[in-house]
């Protein structure tokens, strides 16, 4: 997504652009696939940053649409119904109306009202979008901000799941951006899924004559005197360019540069990955009394966001029901989806041979579903009904994420070390997307745009 966005900006202003993609489809983590005649989106739970009326109609999503000349209306976005953060028996609900969320906070944590207001002000005063922003631990800031630690833990949960590359913390700038993206703006989904964004990008690139080479990975970037001179592909084809934008990640890009295989520094490696299981079921989610869109849950008062010791940890996770976006089409569907995401251990999955891999996937599906039902209204007693209604299950693991992104360790959000400005150690090579620290669909688009604008297009 970041690469396509950067390419489009550059092509719009007359640059000669070549897009190199390892896969035969575009989109990376925001890609799509078909299984048994059904279409699936790889990563899409929600498009964040929906410019809801209460957000004052300014949103990075609108910015991205403008910069790419994609009419916002053409995305056909539908807003969430209502979502929830649940820690044991404590629940904070939210929708795209910020005042509803504030009310929920004040009702659940009446003693924190003033402190929460101060915290909002602190975020407001913090220039999270600057490229020179200091690296601060959100966990320590939250600990200081509130008397009741649970409030901070509950805020960390959705923000971490939607964008933290670090275990058990998130840097304050990313937290602030995600807080705005999720709560102040809001969650929405294109009626036709992720292709509503990918298709116009690709179509525009095609119209402008930008060549996309698919199904061929970059193997090496040759350098001379601190400048990238040549790109070598898997099939040994070579290309030269004045500027190169890499969206495959920090560690991964460094690996393309080095001759000797020195293992990357541990602190640069992202560790956090997930497993996601999608159940396709007959009927509508409301047939089961489930009317919420996304549920972030945690079994404990303390939020743990880390690589689990076992292959998967279901004590914390995210449940998403795409048919609960307020798309009129969803009133008529005869089948729906339940998506469940949990932290997972890349090494465990990577070490499994095929039959064991498949068996472990099946085992995890059952455990994950069982746990998710505990967090869905009357889930437990409807277990048999839901299982009878289930038509198909599809599960992807950290290994799949590695396959789609090439991220070392199947790291969901890449390296904990970010390069905001997109600079690398090589003069004419820039990083865009995940390891620039701009996260998610909207982040990836804006990251690509920013690198194209500031590094290449902006007149010197």
């Amino acid at each position, binding site marked *: 997504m970041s690469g396509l966005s950067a390419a489009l900006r550059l092509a719009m*202003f*007359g640059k000669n652009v070549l897009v190199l993609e390892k896969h035969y489809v575009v989109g990376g983590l925001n890609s799509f696939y078909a299984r048994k005649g059904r279409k699936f989106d790889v990563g899409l739970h929600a498009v964040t940053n929906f410019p809801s009326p209460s957000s004052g*109609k*300014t949103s990075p999503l*609108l*910015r991205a649409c*403008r*910069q790419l*000349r994609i*009419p*916002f209306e053409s995305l056909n976005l539908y807003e969430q119904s209502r979502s929830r953060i649940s820690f044991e028996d404590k629940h904070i609900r939210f929708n795209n109306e910020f005042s509803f969320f504030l009310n929920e906070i004040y009702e659940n944590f009446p003693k924190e009202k003033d402190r929460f207001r101060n915290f909002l002000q602190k975020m407001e005063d913090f220039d999270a979008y600057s490229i020179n922003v200091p690296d601060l631990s959100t966990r320590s800031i939250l600990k200081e901000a509130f008397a009741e630690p649970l409030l901070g833990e509950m805020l960390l949960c959705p923000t971490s799941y939607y964008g933290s590359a670090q275990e058990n913390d998130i840097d304050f700038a990313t937290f602030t951006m995600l807080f705005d993206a999720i709560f102040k703006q809001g969650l929405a989904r294109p009626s036709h899924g992720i292709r509503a964004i990918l298709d116009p990008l690709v179509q525009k690139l095609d119209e402008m004559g930008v060549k996309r080479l698919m199904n061929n990975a970059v193997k090496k970037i040759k350098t001379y005197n601190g400048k990238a001179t040549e790109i070598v592909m898997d099939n040994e084809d070579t290309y030269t360019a004045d500027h190169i934008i890499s969206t495959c990640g920090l560690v991964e890009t460094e690996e393309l540069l080095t001759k000797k295989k020195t293992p990357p520094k541990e602190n640069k490696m992202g560790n956090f990955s997930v497993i996601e299981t999608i159940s396709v079921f007959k009927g509508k989610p409301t047939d089961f009394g489930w009317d919420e869109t996304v549920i972030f849950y945690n079994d404990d008062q303390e939020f743990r966001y880390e690589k689990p010791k076992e292959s998967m940890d279901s004590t914390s996770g995210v449940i998403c029901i795409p048919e609960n976006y307020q798309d009129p089409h969803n009133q008529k569907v005869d089948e729906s989806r339940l998506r469940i995401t949990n932290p997972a251990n890349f090494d465990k999955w990577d070490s499994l041979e095929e039959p064991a891999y498949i068996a472990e996937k099946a085992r995890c599906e059952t455990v994950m579903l069982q746990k998710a039902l505990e967090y869905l209204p009357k889930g437990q007693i409807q277990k048999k009904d839901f299982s009878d209604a289930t038509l198909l299950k599809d599960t992807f693991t950290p290994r799949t994420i590695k396959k789609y992104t090439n991220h070392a360790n199947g790291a969901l959000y890449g390296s904990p070390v970010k390069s905001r400005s997109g600079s690398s150690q090589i003069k004419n090579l820039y990083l865009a997307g995940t390891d620039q620290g701009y996260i998610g669909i909207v982040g990836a688009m804006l990251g690509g*745009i920013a690198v194209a*604008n500031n590094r290449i*297009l*902006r*007149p010197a």
Partner: protein
Amino acid sequence: MNKDKVKQIVLDIISEIAPDEDLSDVKPEIRLRDQLDLDSMDFLDIVMELRKQHGIDVPEAEYRQLESLDSCGNYLLPKFEAGAAA
């Protein structure tokens, strides 16, 4: 070329960049930023479209000259005329 034509060119560019903005009542003497929802990225686009469509260069130090339609007219007219003469 005259100042009104220059202003219209700028308005046309803005309508391409920000199709969601209502441009029917833009006051020429008031800063664009104060009446429309335009940020620095949008101004960069105005500059780049001027170069792409009309071959006019606006150095970064002079972006401020584009703050209102009137100032656009004053600042850009000589550039358009120089371009036409060349």
